[in-house]
């Protein structure tokens, strides 16, 4: 008892109360902020329903932080406004957050079909298409969780092989399965993380954007990019970006013609 009393006496008077108050204030602020965001979201939806698509898009743009549903609705607003490149951009952003949402996938495909860029945005080789479809089917967070589960499973099974030799065969099978799962999820996670950092993707938002041989206005046009085309940014230099098409062709494009999928 005396020890407890001593402990109490060593604490600064009232030090627990501010912490609790701070935590409550934080929760309150978060709650208020979320309530505000929700009301903004509903207001933007109302503008959309009234056919005021540019105003709705502007309202969606103001909402922070943006959820997948905000990007999705923003894509719809741009679609109705006729800016299909911006629509594809925001559908892509929504897909990165909810990769298996059927509404997002349907609208993205529909917008790409409308612009005729579905083939251009599809990797040309079968192996690339397969890898891409597998990697983008889950978010990096999901791949990270898979990787952790597979790693723990593998290591526990290895431990089982070592410490419980009677069930070694069963543990070995589990270890092999876990290791394959670990390898696949680690590959997908690594691929996603590396491409996001080294080769960020972007969407062309201005139709017939000219890709030139050099970052100069007078340079020869190499090829033209249709609105809604997905490209990879290889280099950023002032007002110009070196971009690469899915077929490997590279060219310098004015930076205002394309918008990165991962917001800067």
């Amino acid at each position, binding site marked *: 008892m005396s020890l407890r009393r001593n402990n109490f006496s060593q604490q600064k008077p009232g030090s627990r109360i501010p912490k609790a108050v701070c935590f409550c204030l934080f929760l309150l602020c978060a709650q208020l902020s979320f309530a505000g965001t929700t009301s903004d979201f509903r207001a933007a939806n109302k503008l959309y329903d009234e056919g005021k698509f540019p105003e709705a898009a502007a309202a969606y743009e103001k909402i922070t932080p943006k959820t997948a*549903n*905000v990007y999705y609705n923003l894509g719809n607003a741009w679609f109705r406004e006729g800016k299909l490149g911006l629509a594809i951009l925001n559908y892509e952003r929504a897909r990165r957050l909810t990769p298996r949402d059927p509404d997002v996938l349907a609208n993205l495909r529909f917008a790409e079909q409308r612009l005729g860029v579905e083939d251009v945005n599809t990797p040309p080789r079968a192996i690339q298409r397969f890898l891409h479809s597998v990697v983008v089917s889950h978010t990096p967070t999901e791949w990270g969780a898979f990787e952790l589960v597979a790693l723990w499973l593998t290591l526990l099974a290895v431990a089982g092989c070592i410490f419980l030799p009677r069930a070694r065969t069963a543990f070995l099978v589990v270890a092999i399965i876990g290791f394959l799962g670990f390898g696949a999820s680690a590959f997908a996670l690594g691929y996603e993380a590396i491409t996001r950092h080294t080769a960020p993707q972007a969407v062309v938002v201005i139709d017939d954007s000219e890709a030139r041989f050099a970052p100069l206005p007078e340079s020869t046009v190499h090829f033209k990019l249709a609105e809604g085309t997905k490209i990879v940014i290889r280099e950023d230099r002032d007002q110009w970006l070196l971009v690469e098409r899915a077929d490997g062709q590279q060219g310098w494009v004015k930076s205002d013609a394309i918008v990165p999928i991962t917001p800067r």
Partner: protein
Amino acid sequence: MVWQVTPNRTGQFKIPAAEVEVDGKKYSTEPIEITVENVTAQPELQERLYARVQFDRQPVFLGQTAPLNVVLFARADFPLYGLSGFQVEAEGLGYRHLNKVRSESRGINGVSFNVVTIEGVVTPTRTGKLAFGPAAIKCQKRVGEDWFGRVQTEDITVPVDPLDIEVLPLPEEGRPADFAGAIGQWNLAVTAKPTELAVGDPITFTIKISGTGNIDTVPAPKLGSLEGFKTYDPTTKTTKDDLNTSGQRVIQQVLIPKSTEVKELPDVRLTYFDPVAKAYKVAMQPPIQLMVKANSGGQTEIVSGGSRLRPEEKLGQDIVYLKGDLGPTAATIPFYATSTFWMLNIIPVLGLFGGIGWKWRRDKLRGDVAYARRSRAAKSARKLLASATSYDEVQHALQSYLGDRLNIPSGGITASIVDEQLVPRGVNGELAADTKACFEVCDTVRFAGGDADNGVTATREKVERLIDEFEKKQL
């Protein structure tokens, strides 16, 4: 005896009678008179190399496909090496030709010629008198060989005289109302499989059109009523020769009878213009009889949702409507970039290695007595020392330690162990002397007696230091 004569000018010639005497008797032939005329009907023989147009379908009808060949004649003694090109003006005639030519040798009025034929066809697209040509064939004449034996050639252009082709419109008289542009001579064949079936079973209805003419002008034949059938889009397969002068089209359609009231497939009718007969004709196949039974479920007609099948529904396309709620907020930092993720990756790896190490040590302690004794030597000796109150117990602790460390029985260890075991293991100097002194002190007090209180404590501390030193030296 046979003679061959070749006149080199025109006029009247007389070959006189020939006489021969055999055994004093004379035999003679009748004189032969020969008239050599200028051959105006065969101008080709005036030249060694010339070209002509061969066309025997005058007049042709609009849209009719008729063969037209351009033929190059080269006398056998002319060194023709090959053809390198062909140019022609044939506006409105729809002329096309094969890129591959046909070559042959032919005797014309006793003279041997190499004949090269460019096979082609005309399909007029307008009426009137249309000109085929002027045209020109580019040839290569062999002029010799170079030092390496390679053939040297000279280009020659052979003109082709133009030919007027009269193109007539298709006759208005007798034109059937369902004529849709098919020109040629066409046959129609129709098959259906199976003809005995149940309601809802598919029938493959095959229509085969074949004959001469441009198959591309032949439309799908007219079918009678398909009421009572569920229909699917037909598939069409067309084959034709290189110049499209003959061909075949097979149209397959899947039909499903919707009730047992269906008794026959519709009749098939194709109307076309025959340019040879110069008349419109109709190829027709009568309806094929069917035997439609109730299906295995006893249904005599296909129903859907309580009503008859309706035409296939075409769905509209548009974007999916808005989301009504905000949905979950994504983390600002990806999970893989957090320290939690990496800790959760490292912990199991460390845990596994730790477990493997622990198991290895446990197995070693169980199986290796020397290792087990050495490992626990210091710990057990310190335990003994902690409770030691006499020289005997202090000495026992030291003996126990050295016995465990050196894996020897500890009961018989005395000061002599220093020289026998410790010095050979590298324990020299002060440490060896102190160890020996400890044993001697303990032995002295044990056997001779003396002041023990302060001495035991000092000796115990000294033994503790010795153990520490031995541990440091990894005895």
